[in-house]
C-alpha cells in the first residue's frame, strides 16, 4: 500500500531496513539466547543519524516526528523488536524532555541523545504502581537547591544501560495526583543504583531492570515541567509514545508474515507447497489484512500527533490495542503455518511470538487502553 512517504521518509525507512537486515538479523538469535543488550548495534545505528530521527534539528536531530520514529521502530522490529525497543526506550525517556524540558534541559540532553552518545529510559512503574501508576511510592523531597529521591522503580527498559532517566516521584503526597513530579536523573548520581536485570519471555535483547534511589540528590534544575505536573507529563508522553509500541507490533506482524510466506512457498507436503492449501492461504490473507490495517492506523495516528492534533489519547490507545493484538495473532499464526519448524529456535517466528506478547502489556496493558478509549467515548457528546 502506498502511504505517500516523502523522499526523506523513504530514505529513513531504507536506512533502517538495511540496518535491520544487514546488521541486526545475523545477531538476533544470539542476542535473544544470551539476553544481551545490543550496545554495539546502537553504535552502528548512531552513525546512520537515525538515533535523532524524532529530535528537532536545532538540537542535532533530523527534525522528524513520531511518524519517522515509528518508521524506524517498525523496520527494526520486523527483524528484532528487542533491538528496536532498546532504541525506542531512549525515545520514551526523551519525549518528556522534548515536550516539557526547558531550553537548558533540551540543550543539555537532546544533542547527545540525537547523536546516539546517550541512551535514555523512563521510570514510572513500581512494585505497587503498575496499571495504577498514580500509586507512586517513590518520593522526592525538596532540600535547598536539591530534591532528595528515595524509592525503587521496577521493570524499567534500558535500566543500567541508559545515561539519562526520566523518573516519576511524589513531591507532595497531600496533593494526590497533583503531588507527583518528574525529574531527569543522570546515571552516576550518588544514591542512584540499579536492581536486578530481569529474565524475560521475549524482547530479550532489551534490558529490563530496577532503579534504586537511596537519598539520591538531584539538582533542582532537573525538575521537568513544574512540581505537581508529573502525571500530566506521563500522560502526554504516552500519547506520543504509544504509537511507537504499535509500530513495534506492526513490525513484528510484518516480520512474522514475511517468514510464514517464505516458508509456505517452499515447504512441500502432499506433493505441493503448503501455500497451495486454501486453509493456509486464508490464514496468510488474514495475517496480511491485520498487519496492513494496523500499519494504516499507526501511520495515521502518528501523523495526527505530528500535526499537533488535539485529543490524540484515544487514537493512540486505539492504535496500540489494534496493532498489538494483531502482532500477537499474526505471530501465533506464523508459528502455526510453519508447524514444527515454527516452534524451533532455528526460525525467528518462535522468538517473534514471544516478543509480540509484550506489546499488549507495556505502556499500559490493553485492558487499560480500552479503559482510556471507553472513558473518552463516555465524555463524547451525542453526534445526532
Amino acid at each position, binding site marked *: 500500500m502506498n502511504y505517500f512517504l516523502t523522499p526523506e521518509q523513504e530514505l529513513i525507512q531504507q536506512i533502517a531496513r538495511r540496518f535491520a537486515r544487514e546488521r541486526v538479523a545475523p545477531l538476533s538469535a544470539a542476542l535473544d539466547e544470551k539476553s544481551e543488550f545490543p550496545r554495539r548495534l546502537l553504535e552502528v545505528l548512531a*552513525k*546512520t*543519524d537515525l538515533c535523532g530521527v524524532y529530535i528537532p534539528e536545532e538540537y542535532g536531530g533530523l527534525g522528524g516526528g513520531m511518524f519517522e520514529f515509528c518508521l524506524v521502530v517498525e523496520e527494526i522490529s520486523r527483524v528484532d523488536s528487542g533491538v528496536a525497543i532498546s532504541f525506542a526506550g531512549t525515545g520514551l525517556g526523551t519525549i518528556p524532555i522534548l515536550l516539557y524540558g526547558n531550553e537548558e534541559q533540551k540543550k543539555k540532553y537532546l544533542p547527545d541523545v540525537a547523536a546516539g552518545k546517550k541512551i535514555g529510559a523512563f521510570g514510572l512503574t513500581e512494585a505497587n504502581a503498575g496499571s495504577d501508576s498514580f500509586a507512586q511510592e517513590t518520593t522526592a523531597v525538596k532540600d535547598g537547591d536539591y530534591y532528595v529521591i528515595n524509592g525503587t522503580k521496577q521493570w524499567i527498559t534500558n535500566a543500567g544501560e541508559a545515561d539519562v532517566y526520566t523518573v516519576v516521584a511524589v513531591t507532595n503526597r497531600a496533593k494526590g495526583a497533583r503531588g507527583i513530579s518528574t525529574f531527569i536523573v543522570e546515571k552516576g548520581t550518588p544514591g542512584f543504583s540499579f536492581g536486578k536485570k530481569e529474565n524475560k519471555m521475549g524482547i530479550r535483547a532489551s534490558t529490563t531492570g530496577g532503579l534504586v534511589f537511596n537519598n539520591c540528590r538531584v539538582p533542582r534544575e532537573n525538575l521537568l515541567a513544574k512540581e505537581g505536573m508529573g502525571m500530566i507529563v506521563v500522560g502526554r508522553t504516552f500519547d506520543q509514545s504509544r504509537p511507537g509500541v504499535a509500530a513495534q507490533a506492526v513490525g513484528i506482524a510484518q516480520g512474522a508474515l514475511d517468514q510464514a510466506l517464505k516458508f509456505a512457498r517452499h515447504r512441500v507436503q502432499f506433493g505441493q507447497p503448503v501455500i497451495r492449501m486454501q486453509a493456509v492461504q486464508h490464514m496468510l490473507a488474514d495475517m496480511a489484512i491485520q498487519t496492513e490495517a494496523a500499519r494504516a492506523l499507526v501511520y495515521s495516528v502518528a501523523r495526527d500527533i505530528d500535526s499537533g492534533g488535539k485529543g490524540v489519547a484515544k487514537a493512540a490507545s486505539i492504535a496500540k490495542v489494534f496493532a498489538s493484538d494483531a502482532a500477537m495473532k499474526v505471530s501465533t499464526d506464523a508459528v502455526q503455518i510453519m508447524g514444527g519448524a515454527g516452534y524451533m529456535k532455528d526460525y525467528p517466528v518462535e522468538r517473534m511470538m514471544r516478543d509480540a506478547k509484550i506489546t499488549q502489556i507495556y505502556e499500559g496493558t490493553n485492558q487499560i487502553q480500552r479503559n482510556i478509549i471507553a472513558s473518552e467515548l463516555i465524555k463524547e457528546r451525542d453526534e445526532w
Partner: protein
Amino acid sequence: MNIVACIKQVPDTSEVKIDRETNTLIREGVPSIINPFDLNAIEEGLLLKERFGGSVTVISMGPPQVESALREALSLGVDRVVLLCDRAFAGSDTLATSCTLAAAIREIGFDLILCGKQAIDGDTAQVGPEIAEWLDVPHLTYISAVEEVSDRSITVSRLLEGGYERVRASLPALLTVVKELNEPRLPGYRASLRAKTEPVTTWGAAGLNLDPANIGMKGSPTKVTRSFVPELGRQGQFLAGSPEEQAAALIAALRSARIVHGSAKES
C-alpha cells in the same frame, strides 16, 4: 590528515555465474558493488578523520557507471569523490591502472592512501603496492589494525597466515587492508541526502600529466594468452580411526603407491 581511499566497482561475485564454455564471469544483470575490502578502507579513513581531523577523498578509475559507487561512498560520509574516466584509460592492466591512480592521487595530495587488499574480481592484489611504487612511498599490506599514528609515522598490524606482524612506516604511506580491520558503517541519513546532489569530480587523462605510453592499452604489458580451469591433479585423502589404525592405513597406502617398500616387521 589527508586520506585518499581507492575503490573499485566490482560485480557482486556472490551473485555471479561462470560461463562454462569460456570460463569467464557472466557479468550481465549482475549488481555492481564496491569491492568489499575497499569499504574497510573507506571506514578506516573515516575513523582516522574522526580522530585526527583532515579529509577523506575517495577515488576510482572506471567507466561512467562507477559514479554510483562513488555516490555510495559519499553516503558513508566521505568529503569528496573523484572519478577517473577517459577512453584513453580503457584496457588498463594493473600497471596502467596504478599509474593512472597514482597521478591523480599526487594531484589530490595525501598523507595516507588506503586500498583494499585485493579486488574480488581481478584478485591480483597488485594495484595498491604498485600505486605506492609510482609515488615512491612505503606500502604495508594486509593491515588488520592501525595501532598508532603520529605526525611522521604509522604503526599497524599485518594479518599473516601464521599470526600478526607489527610494523611501522614513515608517512606518507599506503596501506592495503583486510576485513578484520573494522566494521564498515551503513550509509548515514545526512550523508545520503548530500550524496544525491553532490557533484562527482571527473578527471580525464589530459589534466593528469600522464605519459600516453604508460596508460590504457599501451601502458599495459600484461597479455592474457589463455584462461582455463586447472586440472585436478592431486586429491587429499583423510584417514580415520585410532592413531595406530591411521598409521597402519598410511603405511599400507604408501606401500601400495610404492613409495615405501618392505613388510611391516622389517620396518
